[in-house]
């Protein structure tokens, strides 16, 4: 296990380095932030001075190594726009996005797994058809449209839930979050549902497929021949086998949920990092974009690591090494 962790850690560093290079070159290619930052009527002298102060006059490789050197010292640069450390900007906004994504994920799992089980245990029944049709809608309706419909129905027509912002925040164990006040929760419901609908459909389908694939296997029949109750067969024998693919996909999807919360955050004016990213790209605020991508890559790496650990907890074949 220790060897595994060390190897994984070294791999992660390599991934981070490669991402840093690609992202840096990519953002360099998009455009010159000087055009955005300096007013058109500035004199050439003023212009040159600003460009020099931002280090934009140096060649690409030199800019990169300055960045890399500073990054090693924990400094990912200052935002051109806000003139504040970019990493601080990101960590200010990150909790809101995490709160949204995690709530969405919990929603997708808590609803998706039972629905998938029901569907998989009674394939081709009326219930199954309804659930499957619903999941097709979840898959195929574009996220932004779903979001607008949710606002239309629950905020505009019914007036039950607020449509924008994060609402009041409460504090619990030193963590500030909308989860801890009623007002915050009402603000959270719609965006969380919007973000989770796609994942919900995915979880339903994965669970259903898992059940359909596992139920006909010999060990299920053998468990029946042992006199084990149907309930235990489903919730222990079958479910533990389904968990393996479920954890893999959920791990990957959690990363993409974090990274692509952008759409939901834009629709519901949720003050998360997705919105920050869009704004920064528009203004060519290079340090923020680079720092954002590095943070997201780190999160991906971390989530994948957690997935691997969970994997070995669920699957003894992984934990104990090779099959005979």
């Amino acid at each position, binding site marked *: 296990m220790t060897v595994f962790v060390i190897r994984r850690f070294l791999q992660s560093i390599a991934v981070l380095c490669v991402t840093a290079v690609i992202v840096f070159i990519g953002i360099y290619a998009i455009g010159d932030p000087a055009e955005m930052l300096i007013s058109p009527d500035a004199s050439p002298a003023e212009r040159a001075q600003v460009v020099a102060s931002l280090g934009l006059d140096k060649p690409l490789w030199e800019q990169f190594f300055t960045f890399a050197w500073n990054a090693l010292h924990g400094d990912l640069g200052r935002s051109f726009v806000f003139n504040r450390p970019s990493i601080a900007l990101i960590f200010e906004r990150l909790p809101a996005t995490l709160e949204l994504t995690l709530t969405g994920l919990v929603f997708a799992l808590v609803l998706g797994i039972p629905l998938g089980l029901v569907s998989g245990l009674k394939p081709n029944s009326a219930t199954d058809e309804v659930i499957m049709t619903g999941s097709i809608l979840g898959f195929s309706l574009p996220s932004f449209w779903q979001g607008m419909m949710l606002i239309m129905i629950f905020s505009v027509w019914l007036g039950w839930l607020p449509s924008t912002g994060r609402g009041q925040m409460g504090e619990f164990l030193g963590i500030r979050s909308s989860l801890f006040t009623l007002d915050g929760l009402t603000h959270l419901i719609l965006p969380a549902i919007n973000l989770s609908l796609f994942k919900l459909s995915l979880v339903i389908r994965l669970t259903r497929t898992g059940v359909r694939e596992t139920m006909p296997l*010999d060990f299920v029949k053998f*468990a029946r021949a*042992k*006199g084990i109750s149907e309930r235990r067969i489903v919730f222990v024998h079958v479910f*533990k086998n389904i968990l393996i693919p479920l954890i893999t996909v959920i791990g990957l999807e959690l990363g993409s949920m974090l990274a692509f919360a952008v759409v939901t955050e834009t629709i519901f004016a949720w003050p998360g990092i997705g919105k920050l990213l869009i704004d920064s790209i528009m203004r060519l605020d290079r340090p923020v974009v680079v720092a954002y991508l590095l943070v997201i890559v780190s999160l991906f790496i971390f989530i994948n690591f957690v997935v691997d650990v969970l994997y070995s907890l669920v699957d003894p074949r992984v934990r*104990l090494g090779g099959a005979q």
Partner: protein
Amino acid sequence: MTPVLEVKNLSTHFMTRRGVLRAVDDVSFTVGPREIVGLVGESGSGKSITGFSILGLVDPPGRVVGGQILFNGEDLLTKSPTAMRAIRGKRIAMIFQDPMMTLNPVLSVATQMIETVQAHDRVSRAEARARSRDALGLVGIPSPEERLDSYPHQFSGGMRQRVAIAIALLHRPDLIIADEPTTALDVTIQSQILFEIKRLAAEFGMALIWISHDLGVVAALADRIMVMYAGRIVEAGQVDGVLTAPRHPYTSGLLSAVPAAVPRGEPLRPIPGFAPSPLSRPSGCAFRDRCARATDVCATEPMLEIAAGREFRCFHPHLWSAA
């Protein structure tokens, strides 16, 4: 002596889209206490489905459509699902063909054994564990206490089958149905397992139905043999009698296709043709298209003839001199 199991006119059909598949068709037999019965036939002859029918484990679209299964005098077909669950694993146990598939890969052997004990008896986990350990020891698994905490993938095929047998033995059932339990194993392991099961069945006085396509295995193990063809039992009797003097042409056909049973130098004679599709089984004797002795009369259903402890369904049985 009252039989442990008495199957009367059992029919199990599969309602498929292409028609009714008569997997088991009017099958009757009995298994006495401590008796080992071999149920022999080729793939698709309905022998496994017969086993699953007894346990009430036929998966849809299959269904037992008729007959009686009397287990110690009680008809299993009239039992509620709950009552059947209480019998499965407790009084009738089953061992499956492929030991690589019968154990759940993500649960430890201990979990899979303890749940079997606790499914039927209200005992503490510690006691269930002790019983599981003893059962593992009984089937010849070395250091059973440590092996309990292993997972199936840490066992070889033969050892997994021993674990499956240990699970079947946990409640000392009256009857064990073994569905080709040695087919997937190496020949050397096969004979070990065979020997173990025979020993344990005798030790605990259990009756055994041994489903197999291997006549050699059944000859070494069983008291009585039943030969199944196309969903029906075509011949049944004491092992020695059936194997040395088969009455049904299908049985003799099977025997002359077994390498060990044919004298050295003589060619093996495979039975010509294929078993009929269970969807379009010919009327009358299902074997008549492949049978050298068939005549026009075989187009009608042969009745079950009982002669000198032997049952067979054939109009033209082999005749053997009384010697």
